[in-house]
Structures are given as structure tokens and as C-alpha cells.
């Protein structure tokens, strides 16, 4: 059996401190983490780094996170995407449904971490 490789997670968020927080937390959890701060960077990183999972802030300057989600999914439908947002009202937007999960941002990252774990397990990666 091959030694288990570290899973790579791409964090896309325009807030520096949030990105940093997520990075610290997820690295502690044993993931490889790469970061992107806007839509273009996110697409570039997704192509280059081939992450196992993407967390995507719905509200980013330049391109709407939901639009970005559409493009990401079109380029590579296999990569799971978790939408993160400051509030829950986006749940009504049908485009959200093509994401694999939807997490409301919180200082407590328990929900995010357990969601990531679940998705990675179920996507068999």
C-alpha cells in the first residue's frame, strides 16, 4: 500500500486574516494548504496545484464567488468545492446547489473541518 499523501486544500478568500486563520487551522489538521485572494488567482491555482478540495468565499472582489464556482466546476467537475460565506441567505440561490457543501463562516472552525473531512472521505480521495 502506498503511503497516504497529504491532501491539498485551496483556500480562496479575499480577507488576508481569514486566509491566514484557515491556513493555520487546516495545516494543524494535517492538510497541505495553498491560498488565493481573488478569482483569477483561484483559477490559476486550481489548474496548477490540482487541489483535492477548494473552499471558496462567496463574496470576492472581481468575480462573484458563485460565478467562479460555475467556472471551476466546468473546468474540473471532480474537484469538491465548499462555499463559505458570512451569512446563510445564499442557500436559496440555486447555483449554490452545484457546490458540495455550504458553510457559514465562524470563528469556530469545527463545522468547516468536519465538512472537509466528510467530503474527502465520500469523494474517495
Amino acid at each position, binding site marked *: 500500500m502506498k503511503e497516504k499523501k497529504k491532501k491539498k486544500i485551496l483556500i480562496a478568500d479575499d480577507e488576508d486574516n481569514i486566509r491566514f486563520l484557515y491556513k493555520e487551522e487546516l495545516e494543524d489538521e494535517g492538510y497541505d494548504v495553498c491560498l488565493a485572494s481573488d478569482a483569477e488567482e483561484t483559477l490559476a491555482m486550481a489548474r496548477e496545484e490540482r487541489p483535492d478540495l477548494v473552499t471558496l468565499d462567496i463574496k470576492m472582489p472581481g468575480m462573484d464567488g458563485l460565478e467562479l464556482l460555475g467556472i471551476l466546476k466546468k473546468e474540473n467537475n471532480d474537484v469538491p468545492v465548499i462555499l463559505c460565506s*458570512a451569512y*446563510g441567505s445564499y442557500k436559496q440561490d440555486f447555483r449554490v446547489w452545484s457546490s458540495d457543501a455550504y458553510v457559514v463562516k465562524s470563528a469556530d472552525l469545527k463545522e468547516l473541518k468536519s465538512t472537509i473531512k466528510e467530503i474527502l472521505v465520500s469523494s474517495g480521495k
Partner: protein
Amino acid sequence: MLDQKLSLEILKATARIASSTPHLDQILSQIIDVVKNKMNIDACSIFLIDDAEKVSLKAFSGYGVDETANLSLNMGQGITGWVARHKNTLALREAMQDPRFVFIPNMEEEQFQSMLSVPILREEQCIGVANVHTRDKRYFSPVEILVLETIADQVAGCISNALVYAKNQMMIKELSILYDVSLGAQSTLNPELGLWVILSGITRGEAGGFNRAILFTVEDGELIGTMGLGPDSPEDAQRIWTELDGEGKEYQIAQKMISEEEKDEYSKSNFNKFAKTLRYPLKENDNVLAEAALKRKIVHVENCAGHPLVSDEFCQTFGVDSFAAVPLTAHDEVLGVIFTDNRYNAKPITQTSLHLLARFAAHAGWVLENSRLISRLVATNRELLSMKDRLIETEKLSALGRLSAEVAHEIKNPIVSIGGFARRLKDKFMENHEASQNRQEEESALNYANIIFEETQKLERLLKDILTYPKTGDLNLEICNPDQLIQESLDAFKTLLLGQDVKIETHIQKDLSPALIDPIKIKQVINNILSNALESMPRGGKIKVSVYLVDSDKDEEQSFLTIHIEDSGGGIPDQALDNIFNPFFTTKKTGTGLGLSICRKIVENHGGTLRVENFKNKGVGVFILLPLKNSRDCTKKEHPSDGRPEIFFDEQT
């Protein structure tokens, strides 16, 4: 003997009298005086014939008759009666010898020898008789006969005038009263005032002239005494009549509107209080009032005793033998009855007054109908106003929602990172804690980090509530299995129960049909209510959750999914009870006060209702009622099997 000059004088005098006043009684007695004095005779009388063909003594002078005597003859009876029937003048030198003479008691005609009797004719009809008598035997000369006949003609003219006048007066009175009534009824939006105007029209002054009137209205198959107007006692009656006399006989009701004070006085009267105690079943063959109402006719009872529909008790209650009842109708519907009588002056109830009564009743019917319409209007108006208030509130809240959503979003990210790093700090300290030498210092630093983290958690909760404050109609409906929905809500909630001495008991009805609801929102509601319950029992207790179907009492097709959540937390204090649904009202240190207002909003957006039952010192029961009818109507809208519609992205973007 009468010479021509004198006869002309007499005729001139009587003609002047005839045109001086419209009042017949005055005219007749003045004419009699002139005739008696100037014609050199001893007695003079005038009889008039009424509708019943009675020849009644109206005015006289020189007889022994008592002033108040009510003397009347039949047609053909005695000499006067013969003249009336045959329309012929009789001049009798020896009246008592005449075969037509009949002895009339009280008249004392015996003392007179001669008599001249002429018919009073109008349009070929005999409407009365004028008589003169002399003690001495006398031949009446043709001039005398002619003079009396001419006077009879004048009297006939006067009678016509008087009748027309009386009729006019009556009509003016009626019109002015009816005018007053319509005015009273129209110029006030207060129907009660309108009805008082009508009752006072029936009872006051020269108008209806009845002593008392009571209005009964139909309510639930009964005639209920609603208001009564009349003196409380004979003394009271006397007082009122003297007062009215003081105001002048030609009482101008039309200019007299009833004021609020008068209305108050009326409603405080004992008679009104008495009227309000009365109630009679609106049943056929039960009582006269019901009879008048159901048959829609005026009932005039002249003698209570022996009337099949008037019980002794009824008579005693009202204390009269004779009364009238008229129905009140509008649009062919019976609204009530007016009872009226002449208890204090015992005046007989005439046809004319019954007619007038009927007209009042017609007006009263419309006033009642108006009042019904008005009260319906007022109710609708009130409903509209409260709806407007709620709309404004909704408007405010949604404006607040929009504004705060923007602000909250900007605040959210900083809070997340502050809280996140505070937590990490805390975790870091914890890790190194055991090994550290500076335990005390680190302990307090750990505490600080903890406070920062907890405070940010609080802020996050507030933001979440504000951000999820439901906008109108903002629902994402799905067909859900209520059983599963409740279970999921309870499972999510159970984590909060850890370490608390709170038990949850659930009763879920089996085979609940699926409901079309927004599951996320309803879970939010359940969670909020459960949280309130939990927060009300810091020292432990019991929460009972029951789920069942309730049929609507209005609509058979409609049933409600009812989620009933009870706690044993001691209930809501009185001073808080009115405010619990107000956004931002809270009695808790850490509450935002949005919980219940959000819940109600969500439930109402579903077309349901949220009700709170407060049991002081025991606990609170919250009912969430969600209509189920929709789910049947909407089955077609069901999503594909996994509950999500397929997603298509626009290729062009």
C-alpha cells in the same frame, strides 16, 4: 223677529269668525255665541257627523248639559237625527208634539217649545246639524231660516277648512318629524343617537304623542329590549308635560336635535333600564311582539284581557291594557319591533297615530340597518388599520434587514478572524500549559483569550440572527416528512442539552402526511423555541414536544400540522408578555430578542400561526401551526428524486 239689517249683521259676524282662525272648536263656539245673542233665541247647538255615522254634539249654549258631556245620536234618531238623515230643514213651533221628537237624557230639550233645525251640507253630504231653540212658542220666519241655513253653510266651509288645515298640520308635523329623524339618523354616525331621535319622535310633543316607546331588536332568535323612552312614573310624566308646555304648544321638533347629554339622560333613565331587561322569544304564536315581527304587521291591542297572545304577565310587566307594536324591517328582513303605549294619560291609540308610528318604524328600520352597515365598516376599517400598522412594521423591519445585512457582512469577517485567533491563542496556551513555569500569568492570558472568543461567539450569533431575519415570502418550499424534520431538529438540539438536567419527551403522531414547507426555516423555528425553553430552565426541567394534525374549524379541507412545545421553566413574567414578539426585546443577558419575532415571521410566511400560551409559575406552551392544504395543491412542484433540481449553467458566461 229678525229684520234684514240684523240678519246681515249676524252673517257678517259669523263670516268674520269663520275666517279668523283655523281651529274648528273655537269657530263653533264663537258662532253659537253670536247666533244665540243676536237671533234672540234661548239655546243653540251644533252637531257633527263622524265616520261612524254618529251625530255628536260639538258646541252648544243655553242647555242644561254638562260641559263635558259626550252626547251623540244615531242617524235618524230624534229631530236632529231626522234632519241629518233627510238633509232637510225643520222649523217646529211645537217641537215636543212632533212625532219625530225623542227624549234625550241630559239635554233638557223639554224646556224649549220651538225648534229650528238645519242640516250642515257639504258636497251634497250632510256633515252635521245646527239647532236653535226658544222657550216661547215661535214661528221661525223665512228670514230666520235662511240666516241659519247660511250660517250652516259657513260652518260647512269652516269644517272643510279645518279638516284641510288639520290634515296640513298633521302632514307638516309628520314631515318635520320625519325630517328630524332622517337628519338625526344621517348627521350622526352614531346609530344609537339616531334611534333615540326616532323614539323621541314617537313620544315627544305633538309628534307621535305616545307616552312611552321601547325598541326591541332581533338577536339570535330573540327580541331583546334595546332602549326605552318614557317617563319613569306618573309624576315624572307630569313634570315632562309641564316642561313641554313651557316650550310652547307648537313644539318645533324639527329644530331640535338630540344632544349627547340628552342621550345620556335618556339612557340613564329607569325606564330605559327597565326596557333593557326585557326579552321575548321570536317564535310564532308565542307573544304579540313576535307576532308583529314575524307577520310584519302593526298589532294594536285595545284590551289585553282575552287577547290570545298577551299573557297576564305581559300586561303586568308593562302595566297597560292597550298598546301597539310595529315591526322594524329593512330589505325584507325583520330587525326588531317598537312597542308603544299611553300608560300615563290613557289616551286611546288612534289610526292616525298608528300610521305615524309605522313611518317612524320604517325609519328606525333603516337606522338599524345603517348601524349594522356602519359597524361592519368600522370593523373592516379597524382591520385595515391594524394591517397597515403591521405592513409598516414589516416595511421597517425589512429596511432594517437590508441595512444590517450590509453592515453585518462587513463586520462578520473581522469577527471571524478575531475570534478564530483568540481561540487559537487559547488552544496554544492550553497545550503548553502543563509544561510552563509561568502558570499564573498564563492562566490569566488564557482567560483573556477565552473572553475574546466567547464575546465574538456572541457577536456572531447576533449577526446570524440579523442576517437571517426573514424577508417576506422568502421561502424555499419542499415536500417534507414532518416526522423526519422533527427528528433532525431534535438531534441537532440535543448537543445543547449536554450537561444540563433537562429531559425531552416527544409524542409524534404516526403517519403524518408530507407537508410543503421550507425545512431549513422550520428547523430554525423549532430550534429557537427549544432554545427559549432550555434557557428558561437553568436549573433543569422537562420539555415536551408533541406533533399532530388538527383540522381547521373553518374549512374541512384544511388541516394544520401542529408542533406543540411545552417547558417547565416558570412562564413569562406579566410585564414581558406583551413584548415577546417585538424584535430586540429580550430579558436575557446574551439574547438578541429576535428569536420569537423571526419564528412568527417564518410561520406566518408559511400561512400558519404561532401561538404562545403562558402558564404563570409553570411554564410556556408554544403552538406552531402550519397549514397542510398547500402540500396537496403543490405536489406537482415536487423536485427530482434527490430533492434538488438539476443545475444548468449558461454556456455564454
